[in-house]
């Protein structure tokens, strides 16, 4: 039974993931890219070592894997309805606990193991295989790094699992988590004190401690995770919106408010910006030249990041209820774009104002806003044109992804180069061309989706 649950869920995951691609072979493009990335990163180590202490590099690498684990470990939410929205119309085996003679805990345990296996084999191991094939790192050190970084990833996963399980069970329990984290900070606990790093630097027992932490956190999480039946919400009606603005747009606004997606949208820029800052920091150290990154460069990046907001808008609710109503696909797409532009533009401007203050670069703020706006408008148009109402799945299709990159990358690269060379007039001209291009794409949306029925 246990083996069956595991293999069935493995197959289920496989079928779901491959359904995003036009062919099963394209599915392997992603691990292949990671393999190549691992190969090139490892090949560059002798060069990078000139600027960085190896210990510092390894700590940064473990930090990244720990963060990766933290980002994918929210299994506690499976007990919450939020998790079911992620899969939209799809029903998975994990949702079958209520009709099959099996406990939710048991099915979640195998789901958890299955997901970890997938993350390891599809993302982390290809990266290491690439690094191994470069023969740039002596094998004994390489093997130790593999073990310690996998342990770091697992601890990251189990931490989020525990926190999400506590959050779903009782939000107040997070105060206890914050207190423990605060106490650790006050006591001088730093990232390098994490057991996987201790193991890497010679303390063999820390490998065992890491496993104990992972297993303990996971077991506690699995024990406290139970399906939550939320009380039925009675809400203050929002239907006045239907009379003030277009009903389709009003529905989108209500969806964003009530689903809590506005919180996710507001913070969706933070991690990528933090990541970009990290890249600049390490690049500056690597080339031993302090990098002077202007606000216009961040504006291009923020404009592109707005695609995240567009994707989130499509995660809220499937369009299937519209099938029986006299509504066209292009009408729905255009309302989503309107809401997206309003939400992302306001947010992006706030981020740009903060960045301009941090960079002491206020004079270039209007041009940055214009440039960011043009990219946002363009990226949303291209995404909508190529993916319709399904950007979260259609972009995984190789042929769509190639067209997407072909349309987006030249614009992004050109504006990035111009911003780094601080060519203000050129940035203005190119941004204006991008705005014109965006209008053309929008005009073609109707033609492309005319007569296309809602899936």
């Amino acid at each position, binding site marked *: 039974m246990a083996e069956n649950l595991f293999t069935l869920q493995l197959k289920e995951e496989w079928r779901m993931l491959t359904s995003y691609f036009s062919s099963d072979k394209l599915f392997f493009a992603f691990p292949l890219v990671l393999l190549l990335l691992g190969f090139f990163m490892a090949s560059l180590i002798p060069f990078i070592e000139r600027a960085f202490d190896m210990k510092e590099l390894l700590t940064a690498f473990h930090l990244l894997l720990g963060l990766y684990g933290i980002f994918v470990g929210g299994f506690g939410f499976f007990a919450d309805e939020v998790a079911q929205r992620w899969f939209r119309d799809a029903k998975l085996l994990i949702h079958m606990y209520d009709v099959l003679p099996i406990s939710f805990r048991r099915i979640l345990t195998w789901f958890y193991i299955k997901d970890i296996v997938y993350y390891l084999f599809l993302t982390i191991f290809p990266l290491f295989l690439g690094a191994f094939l470069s023969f740039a790192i002596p094998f004994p050190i390489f093997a130790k790094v593999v073990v310690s970084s996998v342990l770091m990833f697992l601890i990251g996963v189990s931490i989020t699992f525990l926190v999400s399980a506590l959050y779903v069970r009782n939000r107040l329990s997070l105060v206890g988590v914050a207190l423990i984290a605060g106490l650790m900070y006050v006591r001088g606990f730093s990232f390098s004190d994490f057991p996987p790093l201790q193991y890497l630097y010679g303390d063999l027992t820390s490998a065992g401690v890491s496993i104990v932490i992972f297993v303990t956190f996971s077991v506690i999480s699995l024990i406290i995770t139970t399906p939550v039946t939320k009380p039925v919400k*009675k*809400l203050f009606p929002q239907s006045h919106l239907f*009379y003030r603005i277009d009903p389709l747009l009003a*529905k989108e606004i209500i969806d964003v408010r009530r689903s809590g997606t506005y919180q996710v949208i507001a913070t969706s820029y933070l991690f990528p910006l933090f990541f970009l800052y990290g890249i600049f920091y390490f690049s500056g150290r690597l080339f031993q030249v302090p990098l002077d990154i202007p606000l216009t460069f961040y504006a291009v990046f923020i404009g592109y990041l707005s695609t995240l907001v567009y994707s989130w808008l499509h995660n809220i609710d499937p369009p299937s*209820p519209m099938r029986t109503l*006299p509504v*066209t696909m292009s009408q729905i797409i255009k309302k989503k774009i309107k809401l997206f532009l309003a939400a992302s533009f306001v947010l992006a401007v706030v981020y740009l104002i903060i960045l301009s203050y941090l960079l002491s670069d206020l004079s270039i703020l209007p041009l940055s806003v214009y440039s960011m706006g043009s990219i946002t408008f363009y990226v949303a148009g291209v995404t909508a044109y190529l993916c319709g109402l399904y950007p979260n799945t259609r972009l995984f299709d190789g042929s769509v992804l190639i067209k997407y990159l072909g349309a987006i990358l030249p614009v992004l690269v050109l504006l990035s180069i111009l911003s780094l060379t601080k060519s203000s007039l050129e940035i203005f001209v190119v941004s204006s061309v991008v705005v014109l291009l965006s209008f053309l794409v929008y005009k073609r949306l109707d033609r492309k989706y005319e007569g296309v*029925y809602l899936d």
Partner: protein
Amino acid sequence: MNPANVIHTAGLSKSYGETRALHNLNLKVEKGEFFGFLGPNGAGKTTTIKLLTSQIKPDEGKAEILGIDIRNDIAVKKAVGIVPEVVSLPSFLTVAEYLEFVCRIRRIDTAKIQYWLDFTELSEDNNTLCKDLSQGMKQKLSFAAAFIHDPDLVFLDEPFADVDPLMQNKLKKFLKAYIEREKTIFLSTHILEIAEKLCSRIAIITKGTLIKTGTLPELLSEGKDLEEVFLNLVRKNG
């Protein structure tokens, strides 16, 4: 096409990959009929309804609904009411908001919302999110949304599957009265008792092919009851 026919199809076909869901459907439904569309699971009933209500496109053939070509999807959806087999409602709208939304999309007066909330016994739940409704409540709300614009033709795909017997009885009475107002109902079901009680004319489909069409007395002349006729026909063509 004859204006008396509110539904007229000619050679309508649809396949999903290798699976032939509907083959060469030729069907006429006249105004004022309570038309029953019967068939076993997977016979092609839902595919037919989806084609006739412009939710999917046919591979071959033509069809007109109330004189409108089914390729004109918006015009078809404006004219008809649809209760789908799998009810899908906007998760984050409340019951009342959903009906207001439907009225605004259809550009009709919202005065009838309260009537439909009362009729479907959803008044007390009018501020409940659609995602928090039981399956039966969802079906009732879908029923209200399909009839709120008083369409001349309504497609019902297994509309009684999740509603309780009291509500079933109420809905059946409503549907009978609806027909008396010269409206047309296209009912897809595999519950033969319902078809026998409600429908004036019946078509039987199996494996994507229409195997019999006739009035209820015509069909009953071939066996002791509709169940026997249905089983004989489906087995013969299986």
